[in-house]
């Protein structure tokens, strides 16, 4: 082929058939805003936001959903969803969400939190929201470190993992073991659904979406708190390109953080 044929015009043209004749297989969810995200190229925050928006659309709850954004890379998450949203202090999203849900019990309230937010400064708030069985949905994005502030060690950092505040690699004797917070919370009667999924491959992403749907249904059906931990990438702070970062999740994180459902309320399990 001549080079000229490979060069694309900068202007636009429509695909071969008029759109009406084509079946739409995928389009932007309504619950996602038009804003360009600030996330790094390849960051799985974008995938997870999209999955949440798809679930909100499919469950038809956009107009009664209220989101609580964390402190972390997703601090601007409220710009990316077309639902009412509030910005919480670091770690306090479950408490803030409790305040919203108790004030307006018929709304669907979800928090979106990173591993520093939920498993470090916010452990008390998430534990007690679970203990109370708050009807909330918690999306827990675990990328093994503090992304926004430049890649420090987090309670979820892997043994031996080098971060800016564990420059010699996480030393278990000095800095302790990674927290398996989802397994811990799954034990609590107030938790109706607790699962860990991953974003490192299309098949995993599809399973992650199903888990997110179940976590929202736990709230909608009044069963208890729904929690989904999602193993996520941080290409920038891991110093890897996006594909290598997904491989890091698959090869390094999954062995430490096994995937699966840790708690499924029988009312959720009964459905397809």
């Amino acid at each position, binding site marked *: 082929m001549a080079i000229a044929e490979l060069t694309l015009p900068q202007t636009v043209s429509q695909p071969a058939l008029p759109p009406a004749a084509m079946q739409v297989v995928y389009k932007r969810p309504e619950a996602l805003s038009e804003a360009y995200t600030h996330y790094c190229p*390849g960051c799985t925050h974008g*995938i997870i936001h999209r999955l949440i928006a798809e679930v909100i659309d499919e469950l038809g709850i956009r107009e009664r959903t209220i989101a609580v954004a964390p402190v972390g890379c997703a601090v601007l998450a409220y710009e990316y969803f077309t639902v009412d949203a509030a910005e919480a202090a670091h770690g306090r999203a479950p408490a803030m969400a409790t305040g919203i849900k108790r004030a307006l019990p018929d709304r669907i309230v979800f928090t979106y939190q990173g591993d520093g937010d939920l498993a470090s400064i916010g452990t008390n708030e998430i534990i007690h929201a679970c203990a109370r069985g708050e009807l909330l949905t918690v999306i827990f994005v675990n990328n093994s470190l503090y992304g926004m502030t430049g890649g420090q060690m987090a309670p979820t950092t892997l043994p031996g993992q080098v971060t800016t505040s564990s420059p010699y690699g996480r030393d278990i004797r000095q800095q302790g073991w990674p927290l398996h917070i989802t397994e811990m919370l799954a034990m609590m009667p107030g938790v109706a659904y607790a699962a860990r999924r991953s974003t490192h491959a299309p098949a995993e992403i599809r399973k992650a979406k199903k888990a997110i749907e179940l976590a929202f249904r736990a709230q909608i059906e009044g069963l208890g708190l729904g929690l989904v931990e999602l193993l996520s990438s941080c290409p920038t702070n891991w110093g890897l390109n996006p594909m290598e970062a997904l491989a890091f999740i698959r090869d390094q994180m999954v062995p430490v953080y096994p995937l699966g459902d840790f708690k499924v309320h029988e009312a959720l399990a009964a459905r397809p």
Partner: protein
Amino acid sequence: MAAKGTVVIDRNRCKGCELCVYHCPQHVLKLDETYNARGYRPVILDERTSQCTGCAVCAVVCPDVVFTVYRFPQPVRTAPVRAVVN
């Protein structure tokens, strides 16, 4: 060559992360030589050697909702390189 589907790419949304390029089962995605308005080389559809099937794996892995994915009722003959929609 006949395509069973196609994608419309929102050129300025793309950050050139290449997750779609890597995961496309048909290998019909690649990065453009030129840059978009935000300084990234965006993805383009390149059906010289195989065709898009509208499987939507690209849309599944894309963090930036770059793709709208269509399937044709009948497979359609395509030109070697498809244009993109901004």
